[in-house]
């Protein structure tokens, strides 16, 4: 800039000295015009130089490292459905989509999250049948607190994280949120396993491919407060052998709630094809008698376009030959359930048409004439809007 000004002043002085001896009017006009162009150019250059100098002064700024803090984020979903059971009354023991021949609501679900340095919290509330009596047990006064997740995280190191509060269970393939499931109706293993566990857990990540979680949890599943004991122990081993393949080996055990072993895995084999697997074995606690179940389910899914995915769920579920059964499956009997589902996405909206056929080893349901039958079927159309 200084150099530019010197050049300008030098030119200007020479110009003033010499102009007196020049009588060529035309030349004078040319010179004046040229002076204007030069002046404008210098101003423009000066502006850029000043801008560059402003960037240059950034060396005086304090070098503050990025902390990773995030603003408060809000996410959630709204879902509704219509279901028709071909027995003309609800027969299949699915947790959600329970109403026959009815336009019914699922829930409005809102989750808040914020991370500040090494700590973060999640608070998720839900209103509606799916988010209240169908997935949450009432509090002591009979109220629903509407809480699906309420916990705080503390990252002690990059690898070790502690979490305390009321959390969605780590057991099983399916979840309560309709956004997290491909099928709208639920499997027998999901319906009869835990939904939430309140407790304190520690997760250690050996790498991005393997981690181990261990925790202590309240004596009961799906309850906000313990019955006076904290006697459930839980553990989860996560491994990802190859990119796209995740596997979780889970166990929760306690005198009050029984013991469940669970394997949940999914593998995105190609860009279009994904295969999921869930297997579980549950033994009820001794104080309520002999009981339990075991089951396995396969979840193949094929994306036929960027907005349409077709999927099946094939489940085998067996109530152990003991004192009682589960979801209308009597002790010692079993069911094979086949569910065909499509997910049609348009922006934030997912449209879910679904057909389900359950076939039991015994007369587990009623037909439309009110007679016992080994088969039950239903069709539904659900809409899920996620935000």
């Amino acid at each position: 800039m200084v150099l530019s000004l010197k050049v300008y002043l030098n030119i200007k002085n020479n110009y003033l000295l010499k102009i007196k001896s020049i009588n060529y009017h035309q030349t004078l006009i040319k010179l004046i015009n040229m002076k204007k162009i030069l002046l404008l150019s210098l101003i423009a250059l000066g502006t850029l130089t000043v801008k560059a100098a402003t960037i240059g002064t950034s060396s005086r700024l304090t070098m503050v490292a990025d902390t990773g803090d995030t603003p408060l984020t809000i996410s959630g979903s709204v879902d509704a459905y219509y279901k028709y059971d071909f027995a003309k009354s609800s027969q299949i023991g699915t947790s959600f989509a329970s109403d026959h021949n009815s336009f019914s609501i699922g829930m409005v679900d809102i989750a808040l999250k914020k991370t500040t340095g090494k700590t973060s919290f999640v608070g998720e509330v839900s209103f509606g049948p799916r988010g209240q009596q169908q997935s949450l047990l009432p509090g002591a006064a009979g109220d629903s607190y509407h809480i699906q997740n309420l916990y705080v995280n503390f990252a002690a190191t990059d690898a070790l994280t502690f979490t305390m509060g009321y959390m969605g269970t780590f057991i099983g393939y399916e979840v309560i949120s309709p956004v997290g499931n491909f099928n709208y109706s639920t499997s027998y293993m999901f319906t009869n396993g835990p939904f939430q566990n309140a407790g304190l857990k520690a997760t250690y990540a050996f790498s991005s491919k393997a981690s181990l979680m261990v925790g202590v949890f309240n004596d009961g599943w799906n309850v906000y407060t313990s019955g006076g004991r904290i006697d459930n122990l839980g553990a989860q081993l996560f491994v990802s052998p190859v990119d796209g393949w995740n596997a979780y080996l889970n166990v929760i055990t306690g005198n009050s709630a029984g013991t469940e072993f669970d394997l949940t895995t999914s593998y995105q084999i190609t860009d279009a094809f994904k295969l999921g697997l869930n297997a579980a074995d549950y033994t009820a606690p001794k104080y309520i008698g002999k009981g339990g179940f075991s089951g396995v389910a396969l979840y193949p899914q094929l994306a036929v376009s960027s907005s349409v995915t077709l999927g099946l769920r094939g489940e085998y579920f067996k109530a152990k030959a003991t004192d009682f059964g589960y979801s209308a499956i009597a002790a010692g009997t079993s069911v094979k359930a086949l569910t065909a589902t499509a997910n049609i996405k348009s922006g934030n909206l997912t449209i879910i048409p679904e057909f389900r056929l359950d076939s039991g080893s015994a007369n587990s349901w009623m037909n439309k004439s009110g007679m016992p039958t080994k088969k039950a079927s239903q069709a539904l159309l659900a809409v899920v809007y996620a935000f």
Partner: protein
Amino acid sequence: MFAKAASKGWLLFYIYNMKKIVLAVICLFFKVATASAQADSLVLDENNKYIYYQVVAQPASSADSLQARAIVFAKKAFTANKLKFKDSDKGTIRATGGVLVAKKSSVAMHEDARIDYTMTIEVKDNRYRYWFTDFVIVPYARDRYANFVPVSGKNVPLEKGLATLSKKDFDGYTAKLLANLKDIGNRLKTYMKTPVAPVKKEVKKTIIPATNW
């Protein structure tokens, strides 16, 4: 008459030089303006890969000092998920990172995806250059704990982003990405102007025994 002719000659000579100065100034102006426009773009390179590229002049700085400053930047300027030092050799520093992005259509802002990238810094005496490339979209989905986490096995190169995203969402992603890259570039400039304390070499003291020698 002679004096008049001499004056005219001098004037012509003067105008000729002045033209050169004006031309040089205008050229300089347009060069700076053009360079400035290029620096703001995410462009496709000769291999049809998106790249964000900048060259920065920093007079009176040796390549060694710029290298040391760039390594400090890559290791300390950001959290590991945004930028993580990978490796370096003489004149070149490499890092990896990612930025969380959200769809424009989202009612609420939460993570919809992460765009991973590699960053390369090359230093020479009095200047350095850096570029970001290898952009990969990692889609995020909600998990059972109401967190948005990466979906394994569904990564898409940014160049193929329009095959899985709407134009509106793709534009939203790339706008956020570009803002993030500029932020990293600005912070790099700060670090590159800040001297790094030389590593103190520990001098081993030789103890000469007073007796028993």
